[in-house]
């Protein structure tokens, strides 16, 4: 294909779209809507996912040290910790601090606290992990470090969280996958409807000598253009909704930070654009191919 043909194909696509502007507009609108649905759920999925990630990242392991440990022993333990992979942050909590916190926590049970003489608590390290996945393994390694008397973490919380993540990803990915499929089908169907309505046009094209390839490319480019326009409209609306919702949520729940760590809006825009173009092309290819076949058979 030389450049003139490409130029002509685009011209044809625009003539064809202009021929039934209303139909084209409606089709493009439908493409936009289904892309918007998809985009909204991608945003939700990734954002909730990252929110869960945030919770997971806050899981900590508390390592209690021997009561008789010296300050040089403490630094030795800390050095050992540096050798263990998967630890993101290490915070030392002296037994004094721990006791203060404890007293704070049991304010109501004052009587109990007052009954205690001296400080019964040991020094400890609070460790943050890079990921909660290997928390058991890390805990085991920590136990082996000399000077560590006990290692504690919320076993129940970890397992609940893990289950939740599993369910969420299971459901979320199924839903996103299902939506992707549904979007594909809706867009392909819509393009198919607009092309079926042009059966008569295609018949004439063939009768005056247009090759199948020529006809196919005319409609492919038409599909591409529709997909492109649909994606652009979707992007504008999604970005609008996004800004509005971010703003609105910020007003209502100023303490929540939304849409910060999830899917970046630019990635999403690029994804929508590619999707629009690709489905536009594929949808029109399928439709025109089957239409040409049906014309041949008649």
């Amino acid at each position: 294909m030389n450049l003139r043909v490409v130029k002509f194909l685009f011209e044809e696509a625009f003539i064809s779209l202009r021929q039934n502007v209303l139909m084209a507009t409606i089709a493009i609108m439908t493409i936009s809507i289904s892309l918007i649905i998809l985009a909204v759920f991608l945003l939700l999925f990734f954002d909730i996912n990252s929110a869960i990630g945030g919770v997971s990242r806050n899981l900590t392991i508390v390592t209690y040290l021997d009561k008789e440990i010296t300050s040089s022993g403490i630094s030795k333990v800390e050095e050992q910790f540096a050798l263990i992979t998967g630890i993101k942050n290490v915070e030392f909590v002296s037994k004094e601090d721990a006791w203060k916190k404890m007293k704070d926590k049991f304010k109501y049970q004052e009587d109990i606290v007052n009954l205690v003489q001296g400080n019964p608590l040991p020094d400890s390290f609070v460790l943050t992990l890079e990921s909660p996945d290997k928390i058991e393994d890390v805990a085991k390694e920590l136990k082996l470090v000399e000077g560590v008397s006990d290692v504690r973490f919320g076993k129940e919380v970890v397992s609940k969280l893990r289950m939740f993540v599993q369910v969420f990803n299971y459901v979320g990915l199924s839903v996103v996958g299902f939506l992707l499929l549904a979007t594909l089908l809706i867009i392909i169907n819509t393009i198919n409807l607009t092309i079926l309505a042009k059966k008569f046009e295609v018949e004439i094209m063939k009768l005056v000598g247009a090759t199948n390839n020529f006809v196919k490319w005319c409609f492919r480019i038409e599909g591409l253009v529709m997909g492109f326009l649909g994606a652009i409209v979707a992007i504008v609306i999604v970005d609008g909704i996004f800004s509005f919702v971010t703003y609105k949520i910020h007003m209502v729940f100023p303490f929540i930070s939304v849409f910060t760590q999830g899917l970046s809006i630019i990635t999403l825009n690029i994804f929508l654009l590619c999707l629009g173009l690709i489905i536009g092309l594929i949808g029109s290819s399928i439709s025109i191919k089957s239409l040409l076949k049906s014309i041949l058979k008649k």
Partner: protein
Amino acid sequence: MIRLRNVTKTYNKSFTVLQRINLHISKDEFVFLVGPTGAGKTTLIKLILREEVPDSGSVYIDKVNTRDFNENQTSKLRKNIGVIFQDFKVFNRSIYENLAFVLKIQGEKKKIIKEKIDTVISLVGLEKKLHLHPFQLSGGEKQKACLARAIINRPLVLLADEPTGNLDPDASWEIMQILSKINQQNTTVVVATHDKHIVDMMRKRVIALHGGNIIRDQQLGKYNHEP
């Protein structure tokens, strides 16, 4: 140029329109195809255009059997055949776009497209209607536009299916003069018509179809479709 050998065409596997038709039309000929309604004139034209394929027998265009043409060969064939369809078959676009399309699929340049359209549109006298859509044209004007589309490419073969059905006698006669002139410029012309007056005046070869057969094939013939 056009040769049919034992061509039989049946619709719906039961209704035989053409039966073992043998026919030869040479390059420089101008042929009238006559016959009562439903005789198979349009079907014959469709066979030549390879819009239909015969159930048995073969159609040769320029000595090539079109039976086993693939899609590309068919397109190439059609680019060399100009057709005025009985039911027009024009795009729902302006006449200009209709004419341009035929040239565009040949890969012509914009400038040449414009020139060729200008020439052919003044030939049929539709200059003022060039940018109207088909539904804005009268029946006769549409027919003229179809003639313009059929000849714009200087085709090797021109098939005209009832090209004057919507034209007054004068306009019909003009159209016939145009077809005649094109024929003299080396285009084979086949005209299916019911216009007795024109056939009688033109004194060309007349092929009469009836009941699935060629019942008469006369040089300098007259319109007469009685068996």
